[in-house]
């Protein structure tokens, strides 16, 4: 099966050539690989290699890339989002046709059979398969907070990562630790990259990750044989290059100083900026405002809720969701502030007392000197 190209495989699966090219076009668009220079856009130059052809050539010449999907401390929300995303051809293609060989939630097999499948896959495609991790990995209690088939998540991850070509950590939990790693982190959860140090790890953070961002990254690997260009937090720049604020449809209201002050006031009804209601858009790098959700239907801010910053590291501990984005993370209570005030005042009183004592001594000395000389 490894010798069969993706195109051959799709033909066998009943996909026509026309459908195949359409899929390639869609994939190229999702990837955001556009060679359109201003000259190309204006029709003044002929594209040397159209992006659709680039994808088509890759899919027609390359074998399938097997994918192993491991779920650890997660809610399977990223898988849910992916299977429910409204780009059915694409998702269907990626999930069922092109790639996924092992997925703990979606696989039909279970128990020993599923384990056996996984073992076979790891042997057959050693060094070639793509490992997708969903959920954080607990390290507390010798890793026993999360076990599958009697083996710990740490063990399973390290075994799977050893033979992987590359790793994609999808969702905030796998990428940055997410909710399981939030204080007080009872299970000692860590993100995937802390346990995989010898392989490239791409992060698709989000709660859940945007399905198109995930498929886009996967397809990039299919087409180019490597992970896309990543930023300093290992996120694909194509999807995480700008903040939600930068692309937000309510941005003009932010600039104009028109804000909703509560969820049911005039401003909220008029669709004004949600910054004062705690929107984390300005500090959140994600494609929500551009790609949106449900096939481009809407995204949280459009629906009237401030951005929670769910694709950022530590988003659960970064201050309250409805607290201003600029607000400090920890604030002294009135008691602590009062104690500081009192402490300062006491030092001030002590200082003044010391000064007076010194003055009295000085005065006394002066008197003695005067009486001696007089």
């Amino acid at each position, binding site marked *: 099966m490894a010798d069969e190209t993706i195109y051959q495989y799709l033909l066998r699966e009943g996909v026509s050539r026309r459908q195949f090219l359409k899929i390639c076009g869609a994939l190229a668009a999702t990837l955001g690989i556009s060679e359109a220079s201003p000259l190309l856009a204006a029709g003044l130059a002929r594209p040397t290699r159209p992006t659709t052809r680039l994808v088509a050539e890759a899919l027609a010449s390359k074998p399938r890339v097997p994918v192993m999907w491991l779920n650890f401390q997660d809610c399977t929300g990223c898988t849910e989002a992916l299977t429910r995303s409204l780009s059915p051809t694409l998702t269907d293609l990626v999930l069922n046709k092109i790639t996924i060989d092992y997925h703990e939630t979606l696989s039909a097999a279970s128990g020993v059979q599923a384990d056996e499948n996984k073992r076979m896959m790891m042997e057959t495609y050693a060094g070639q398969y793509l490992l997708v991790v969903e959920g954080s990995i607990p390290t507390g209690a010798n890793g026993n907070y999360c076990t599958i088939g009697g083996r710990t998540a740490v063990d399973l991850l390290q075994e799977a990562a050893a033979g992987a070509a590359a790793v994609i950590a999808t969702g905030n939990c796998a990428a940055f630790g997410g909710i399981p790693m939030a204080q007080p982190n009872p299970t000692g959860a860590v993100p995937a990259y802390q346990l995989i140090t010898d392989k490239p790890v791409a992060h698709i953070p989000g709660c859940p990750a945007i399905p198109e961002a995930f498929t886009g990254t996967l397809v990039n690997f299919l087409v180019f044989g490597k992970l896309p260009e990543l930023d300093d937090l290992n996120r694909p720049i194509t999807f995480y290059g700008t903040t939600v604020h930068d692309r937000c449809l309510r941005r003009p209201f932010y600039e104009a100083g028109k804000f909703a002050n509560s969820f049911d006031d005039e401003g909220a009804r008029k669709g004004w900026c949600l910054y004062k209601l705690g929107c984390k858009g300005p500090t959140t790098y994600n494609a929500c405002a551009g790609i949106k959700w449900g096939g481009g239907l809407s995204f949280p801010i459009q629906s009237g809720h401030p951005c929670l910053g769910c694709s950022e*590291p530590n988003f659960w501990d970064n201050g309250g969701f409805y607290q201003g984005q600029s607000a400090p993370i920890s604030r*002294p209570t009135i008691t602590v502030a009062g104690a*500081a005030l009192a402490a300062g005042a006491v030092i001030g009183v002590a200082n003044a007392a010391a000064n007076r004592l010194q003055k009295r001594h000085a005065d006394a000395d002066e008197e003695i000197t005067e009486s001696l000389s007089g």
Partner: protein
Amino acid sequence: MGSTDATLAFARGPLFYTALLIFIAGMAYRLVSVLLLGWKRDRVPNKGSKLRGVAVTYAKGLLIFPFIPWVKKTFRGNQTTYLAGGMFHFGLFVVIFLGTAHMLVWKSLLGFGWPTLALPIVDFLSAAAIVAMIALFVNRLANPVLRLISGPSEWLNLLIVFLPMVTGYGLTHHRLLGIVALPYENLYLMHMMSINLMLIWIPFSRISHFMFYFFSRTYHGAQAGKRAVMP
């Protein structure tokens, strides 16, 4: 996770917390120290009203003189200091209290908020305040008398107030000094770090005049009112 995010969380969390407490304790210490320096016993009967003196000094100093500065000798003598200083203080006041992001900080600390100004207005005034600060710096360098009476603490005051303003302005534009494009987090970190430094520095420097200004104005206003010589 990038080290910037961890450091930023620290700067917005424990470090800010500590800096704020040092600021509160430090200001209380300064105020109590000054109050306990000793008061002269008031042996003379009041000729006029102390309260009236206080009211007049604030009305003149804050509401009237800023708009007709030429009547003041301070203005005629040091026009740069007066104008740039005025622009700086006005801009700073607007940015700190009427900028939306800053109002949200106050709201999180005090529990209540207030209406704010549109971003372009705040942005313009913060730029004006930065320009004013540069003018004040150049003035301090160029004026021989000013340079003579400027010690390290004066230069440090300028720097420590300048840093939060420049990084804050950069923060809204995602560019430091309007030129160097930097990620939001980096600028945010620089802003918070400089704010924390300033909070700790204020009580032990002359920036504490934000409190003592009102202290001395009230005292002198009352003294003038008592003698029935309006300030």
